[in-house]
C-alpha cells in the first residue's frame, strides 16, 4: 500500500496511517449477519430454555422425574417474548444457515480456510499452544504480526466454531423436530434420544456463548476500534509509530 509520504520541510507523516487488507467482503458481510442472527438465537433460546430449565438424557424427561442437570434458573413461562421467541429462533436459524453456507462455500473456493484458518503443520505443537495460552492468560498485547494473520489458537478455535459447534447446533436442533426425525430417525438415535439432543444443543450453545465472550474480550485487548473497523471496512490500520 501507499508508502508513508513526507511533506518536504515537515518531518511529519502525511495523510492516513498505513493500512492493510485484512478481511474479504464475504467474510465481513457473513460475519455481521451471523453476529445479529446469533444474538437473536441466544435471546430466543434463553426464552425457550426458561420454560423448562432442566436437562435430561435419553428419550424423555419431565419435571416430576429424574433429571441430568437442574440449571440454577427459574421456570418462567411468561417471558415477554415467550411465543414470538420461537418464531424468532427459527427465522434466525434459517438466516444463519444460509449465511453459514455462503461463508463455507465461498471459503472453500477462495482458499480462505486453507490460507487463513488451517494451521501450518509445523505450528501444531503443544509447546506453541502452551505459549499462546500463557500469553493470553497474562493478557499480553498480541505481537504486531497478529494484526494480519491469526495465531494457532485462534485458527483452532475458529475451525472448532465453524466446523464443529455450528453444525452440531443445527444437527441437534433438527433432532428435536418430530417432523424431521420422522424422515431421518438416525439424526436423533445417534444421540440416544430427543432429550439427549436437547442437552447437547444446550451445551454446544453454551460453548458458542463462551466463545463470543472471549472473542469480544480479545478484540478489546487487541484494540477494539481498530479490529472492529477492520471487520467493517476490510482494512486494518497499522498502529501509529511515535516519532
Amino acid at each position: 500500500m501507499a508508502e508513508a509520504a513526507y511533506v518536504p520541510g515537515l518531518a511529519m507523516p502525511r495523510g492516513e496511517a498505513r493500512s492493510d487488507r485484512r478481511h474479504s467482503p464475504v467474510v465481513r458481510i457473513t460475519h455481521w449477519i451471523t453476529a445479529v442472527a446469533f444474538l437473536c438465537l441466544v435471546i430466543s433460546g434463553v426464552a425457550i430454555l426458561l420454560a423448562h430449565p432442566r436437562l435430561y438424557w435419553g428419550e424423555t424427561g419431565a419435571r416430576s422425574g429424574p433429571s441430568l442437570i437442574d440449571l440454577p434458573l427459574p421456570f418462567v413461562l411468561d417471558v415477554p417474548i415467550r411465543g414470538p421467541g420461537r418464531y424468532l429462533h427459527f427465522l434466525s436459524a434459517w438466516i444463519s444457515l444460509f449465511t453459514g453456507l455462503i461463508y463455507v462455500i465461498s471459503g472453500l473456493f477462495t482458499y480462505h480456510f486453507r490460507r487463513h484458518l488451517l494451521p501450518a503443520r509445523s505450528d501444531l505443537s503443544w509447546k506453541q499452544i502452551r505459549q499462546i495460552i500463557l500469553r493470553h492468560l497474562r493478557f499480553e498485547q498480541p505481537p504486531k504480526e497478529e494484526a494480519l494473520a491469526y495465531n494457532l489458537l485462534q485458527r483452532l478455535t475458529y475451525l472448532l466454531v465453524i466446523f464443529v459447534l455450528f453444525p452440531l447446533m443445527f444437527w441437534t436442533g433438527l433432532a428435536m423436530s418430530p417432523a424431521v426425525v420422522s424422515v431421518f430417525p438416525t439424526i436423533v438415535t445417534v444421540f440416544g434420544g430427543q432429550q439427549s439432543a436437547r442437552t447437547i444443543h444446550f451445551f454446544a450453545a453454551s460453548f458458542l456463548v463462551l466463545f463470543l465472550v472471549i472473542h469480544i474480550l480479545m478484540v478489546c485487548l487487541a484494540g477494539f476500534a481498530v479490529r472492529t473497523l477492520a471487520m467493517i471496512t476490510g482494512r486494518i490500520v497499522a498502529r501509529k509509530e511515535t516519532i
Partner: protein
Amino acid sequence: MSKLITRRKLITTSLATAAGLAGLEAAARIADHYGFLAPDHSGLFGAGEALTYGTQRILMAHHSAAREFNRSEISKIIPVNGEPPNTDPYQRLLAGGFADWRLKVDGLVVRSSTFSLAELKRLPSTSQITHQACEEGWSFIAEWSGVPLSYILNLVGVRPEAKWVVFFAFDDAWDSIDMPEAFHPQTLLVLGMNGQELPTRHGAPLRVRVPRQLGQKSKKYLSRITVTDTVKNIGKGWGAVDPEYGYSWYMGI
C-alpha cells in the same frame, strides 16, 4: 474508490430489490398452489415459517412415519399441562360420563355426521407408542389408541377442494392440520391411553394425536371437526389459536 452512492448503483439496487420482491411474491404463489404455505406465513416472521413448513412438507412427501417404541419404553411419569375446561357444558358432559357428548364432523364433506362416544368406540381402532414433546421442553412416551382420522374422513367423504382439517375444543382452543397430515396413518382420534380410557386431563372424551408435530398440536377435549378450504375466516385467520399468542401454527418445528 469513491464511497458515494452513484446513480447507477441506486438504479441497480432498486431494480434488484424490485426483482427480489417480485420473485418472493411469485415464490409465495407457487408455494401456496402446492400447499407449502403455512396459514401464518405473513408478518415479520413469515419468511422463517414459510421456509420451515415448505421444506418439511417436501421432506415428508413420502409420508414418513413418527418413530414407534416398545411397550417397555413407555414413560412411568406422564406429565400433563393445563386443566380440563371449567365451562358448564363440558362439566355437565363429564358428570354424565360423556353419554350425551357428540362429535360433529362437517364442512367440505359429502355427509356431515355426528358420532357418539359409543359409536366411535365401535369403529376400527389402532394404537401407537410414540414420543410426545411439549414445546416447553419436557417429553414422554405413551401408548395411544383410537380411530385413525383418515377413517372418519373417508366415512364422511372429503370434497376435493378441501385443504385443512380444523379441530374445535371445549376449552375454546382450535387448531388445524393440512390434508397430508390429516390422512397420515398415525394421525389418530384418541380414545384410550396406556390401555385405559383417555384420562380427563389428557383430553377426554376425545383428543387428536399428531405424532409428527409437537404436543401442542394434539388438541384435547374435541367437540367438532370441520373440513375447509380456508382458515382465513376462523379467529384471526392464522390456522390456530396458538399464533394469536405468538406460537407458530406449524409444530413440526
